[in-house]
């Protein structure tokens, strides 16, 4: 019985890309690149939220030209010499090539409608947004940058969980980011967490749920264990909206579900409330 697989945080692999990347998986509408970009990667027909890349997210939130990236040079190491079917180093190199990022999070200073804030934005395209040492360190530095400058921190997450190729060190990024938020809170500054699809496992079980305000995008999966694992263990039929933002709102786990086009004005209002310096 001890072999039941319950360590499911990393069990949500990068979803396979849709047949055509610009086809809505929900209603099958087709879009051109520029159409989708224009619409913030939201299906104008059915409202489905496509995954949004970190740089695009930053462009959609930060005032033009205001983003100042921090810790851009941080790279993962391979502390375990991890090798499954392929070496971890190879997987990293491939992800870097594919995404143009050095890891699954981008952090930096920005302003939003003229108010200063710190951004910590995840990118699901980089190894399923998994959290290893670099994501943990970047988030942790974002907390310090926000505290030092006296500004709120905004995080946007999209993650399959902890990065198992870094073994126990990946798990340690949970307490690391939690400790960083506590330091931020002691400085009297706020954190706003925006959970995009999917925010699961170790990211959900650490910094993503510790925001002073918790927002999610419509339809975002927010579950600690993956639906497949839960079904396997409980052998029940799962509710239709199992783990989704909508269910979480109903159960009191969220402050609001914010469709992407409303995210910027919502964050702008919250920055006004959190007295972000102009």
């Amino acid at each position: 019985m001890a072999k039941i697989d319950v360590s499911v945080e990393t069990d949500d692999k990068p979803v396979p890309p849709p047949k055509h990347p610009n086809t809505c998986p929900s209603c099958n509408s087709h879009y051109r690149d520029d159409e989708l970009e224009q619409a913030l990667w939201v299906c104008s027909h059915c409202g489905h939220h496509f995954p949004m890349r970190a740089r695009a997210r930053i462009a959609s939130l930060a005032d033009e030209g205001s983003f100042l990236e921090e810790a851009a040079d941080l790279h993962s190491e391979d502390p375990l010499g991890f090798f499954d079917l392929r070496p971890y180093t190879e997987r990293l190199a491939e992800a870097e090539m594919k995404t143009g990022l050095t890891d699954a999070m981008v952090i930096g200073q920005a302003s939003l409608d003229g108010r200063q804030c710190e951004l910590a934005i995840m990118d699901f395209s980089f190894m399923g947004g998994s959290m290893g040492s670099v994501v943990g360190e970047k988030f942790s530095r974002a907390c310090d940058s926000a505290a030092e400058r006296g500004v709120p921190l905004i995080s946007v997450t999209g993650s399959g969980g902890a990065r198992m190729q870094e073994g126990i060190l990946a798990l340690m990024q949970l307490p690391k980011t939690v400790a960083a938020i506590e330091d931020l809170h002691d400085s009297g500054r706020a954190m706003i967490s925006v959970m995009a699809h999917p925010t699961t496992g170790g990211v959900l079980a650490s910094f993503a749920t510790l925001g002073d305000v918790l927002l999610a995008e419509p339809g975002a999966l927010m579950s600690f264990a993956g639906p497949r694992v839960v079904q396997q263990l409980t052998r029940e039929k799962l509710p239709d909206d199992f783990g989704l933002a909508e269910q979480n709102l109903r159960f009191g786990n969220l402050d609001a579900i914010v469709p992407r086009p409303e995210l910027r004005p919502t964050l702008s209002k919250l920055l006004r409330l959190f007295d972000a310096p102009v």
Partner: protein
Amino acid sequence: MPPSEHELRLRERLSRLRNMPLLGGAKLSGELERLQRQLDRMGEEPTDEEIWRSVELARNEKRPYTLDYVERLLDDWFELHGDRGRADDKAMVAGLGKLDGRTVALVGQQKGRDIQERAERRFGMSNPEGYLKAMRVMELANRLGFPVISLVDTPGAYPGVAAEQHGQGGTIAASQAVMARLTVPTVACVIGEGGSGGAIAIALADRVLMQEHAIYSVISPEGCAMILWRDAGEAKKAAAAFKPDAAHCLELGVIDGIVPEPPGGAHKDPDEAARLLGDAIREVLDELADVPGDELRRRRRARFRSLGVFA
């Protein structure tokens, strides 16, 4: 004799720790000394076979569980129940007791011995209500100035429909946040399986220990094998790859010390295993007894914030 690769790595970590620009100027001298001591007495790097043996011993059905240690180590044990408002999750036990005349709070996952108890305690897999109970008791200890001992023994948090609805992820995060705020001495020891988020929820402590044959990991070997090799049968290979054994956890700076077990494993002589565990906990509590609460908290956060390997 030239140093082994294992020793070289330890020494490298040691020199990194020495040069690390730590937040708020935390002094890690105590940590350095401990690492040095461990380095001095450690042997060779465990082989894949030895790692797998730890996986099997950590899950051995006769291995002592949390309450087996409680009854051997604590006097006047008084178990506290309930999360105040929803349930009493029996996968997590929490209570007060005396360790050598000193009152402590103890929290820990509890597996079951017989079939009924296993079902009732969900094999040590907590629901959010269990973490809420642990949080409540840790806050009680903080209010009254009692050190907190945490015994970690879980395959992971319970993956159930209700658990997800009731905020399993957020509760695990909140439990860590509570531990990051405590101003009393805290020590965690992994006594069997330290499975993922379900384990770290109660392991953000001043000192983290592992028993010799315990495992501590981000995912179960089977889960890892299933995902990366597409075959749960490759669990042994997976374990060899992600190295959940105590020696590797020590080497990576994740734990502060290894608690020895009786020959053949803790289940061969639970009394002796308890004696050894008790000695280790006592040593930590003695060491931390005079550190001011604010300083404990600052160092605890700095410790966890220093974990990770990147360039």
